[in-house]
């Protein structure tokens, strides 16, 4: 077999593999208890996003995708953890989430249902717009998005909620790099900027919550109600 073909096939399989591992990290965000482990899972997810961007950029010969990968590495793998650790510091290292709204095995089953749902939605869409190697990115990106939303509702601690929102953006971009190979840089830059501001703002807000309310278990804040 000509080398070019096998290497392309290998890259296709690698891109599919990265997609599978991305999905696994999205599950991991629901299942990890320690806050620091949550952050590491997010970094791992961003790493897979960057890898996918690099592979797809090489396959589609798109410089903007390679730039997307580079920006992801810089912002999500380096800057965001640094920013969170700087703003929250000791809080982050000590925190351990005692309970979620639903217990973890149930959450994992619901997460599976969400993946099945996004698969069915994406299959209908992909049927009308054929694509090659990156057909997996749309359903897995959508699943990552919805799993992040689910993780956010189910978590009680503040920092895992922030990380869940950041992972939603990861999922949106994971789908985006496959369906829009020549995404203008402005989209990725605004996404990266947005993610940085979210981290900064919400990190400071978590510190305020901790100061004034005394705990970072924000899921338990229910003083504002209609009773």
């Amino acid at each position: 077999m000509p080398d070019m073909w096998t290497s392309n096939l290998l890259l296709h399989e690698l891109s599919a593999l990265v997609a599978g591992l991305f999905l696994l990290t999205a599950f991991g965000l629901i299942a990890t208890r320690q806050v620091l482990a949550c952050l590491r899972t997010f970094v791992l997810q961003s790493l897979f996003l960057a890898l996918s961007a690099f592979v797809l950029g090489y396959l589609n010969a798109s410089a903007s995708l390679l730039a997307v990968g580079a920006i992801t590495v810089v912002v999500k793998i380096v800057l965001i953890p640094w920013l969170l650790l700087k703003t929250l510091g000791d809080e982050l290292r000590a925190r351990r989430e005692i309970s979620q709204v639903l217990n973890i095995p149930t959450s994992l089953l619901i997460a599976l249902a969400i993946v099945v749902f996004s698969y069915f939605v994406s299959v209908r869409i992909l049927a009308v717009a054929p694509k090659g190697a990156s057909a997996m990115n749309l359903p897995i990106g959508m699943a990552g998005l919805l799993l992040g939303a689910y993780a956010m509702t189910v978590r009680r601690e503040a920092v895992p909620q922030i990380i869940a929102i950041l992972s939603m953006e990861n999922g949106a971009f994971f789908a985006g790099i496959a369906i829009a190979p020549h995404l203008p840089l402005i989209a990725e830059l605004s996404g990266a900027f947005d993610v940085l501001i979210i981290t900064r703002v919400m990190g400071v807000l978590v510190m305020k919550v901790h100061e004034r309310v005394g705990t970072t278990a924000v899921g338990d804040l229910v003083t504002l109600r209609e009773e």
Partner: protein
Amino acid sequence: MGNKILLNVIQVIVVMAFSPLVKGVLNRLKERIQSKRGPSIFQPYYDIWKLFHKDEIVSDYSSWIFRVTPYVVFVTPIFVALLIPVLTSYPLFFAFMADMLGGGFILALGGFFATLAAIDTANPYGPMGASRTRMVGFLAEPVFMIVFFTVSFVAGSTIPYIVQKHWVTPIANFFEPAHVLVMIAFVMLIIAETGSIPVDSPSGHFELAMVDESKGLEYSGRGAALVKWGGCMKVFVLFCIFLNVLVSPWGLAQGDHIGEVLLAVPLILLKMFIFILILVIIESSLAKLRLFRIPEFLGAAFVAAVAAVMTRLLEF
């Protein structure tokens, strides 16, 4: 045909002979990583030899199950060893008896009898350990099923010999997401089924914390030797399935010649050794999970296996 029967017998002898060695190497490496000296790698052989020469004491309150179990636990891995690729990459004489699902059921049969026997003895720690093993088992069985299902869905067959070929030709198939995720799920399963950390502590002596070990507490003499040896062989067989079917289906004998087959023996031992190294690193870096978190661990394995099926479906 006679050759094939002979090769099958050699396969079984290899499994019987080298499984205590695998156990011994595992124990020694674990101790070494903790900067201790560790027992000799042949220690399990000495233990089995010693136990065969001791008297057997059987409780009056136990039934035939207790007497039969050591034999069942000893024989079931041998059965499975007849079916799976240990030394050769083509099916041997008895391989028609069952495919992977059948092999899984036969292994489960051994575990089932061991659990029953533990309850049979009226020793307080027996049923406690038995119920915990069942909890781990009932959560692990669906994962087994889904793993087998994924593997057969991908490769198109449930016979291990056919499945193993799928992953290596072409080499790109090795990196299929279904493959990698199934490997991850299966490693977690092996940890659960062989009672390693983080599910259970195989070298612990504290009966209240035992999950798997407490099933073997009541046996003595020949029974204990058979149970111990059977446990080693179960571990060996599981490793074989993992390595030869999923991970590294290379180095197996392609031809009929007895020399080739004998050459495959050190190769399989080498593969086992590398896997043991990885397993020891995993074991030494994690702490034992609290009992209520074992479902989470197995839930993660389940999710990985289902994600493997999902990604396979999505690729179409």
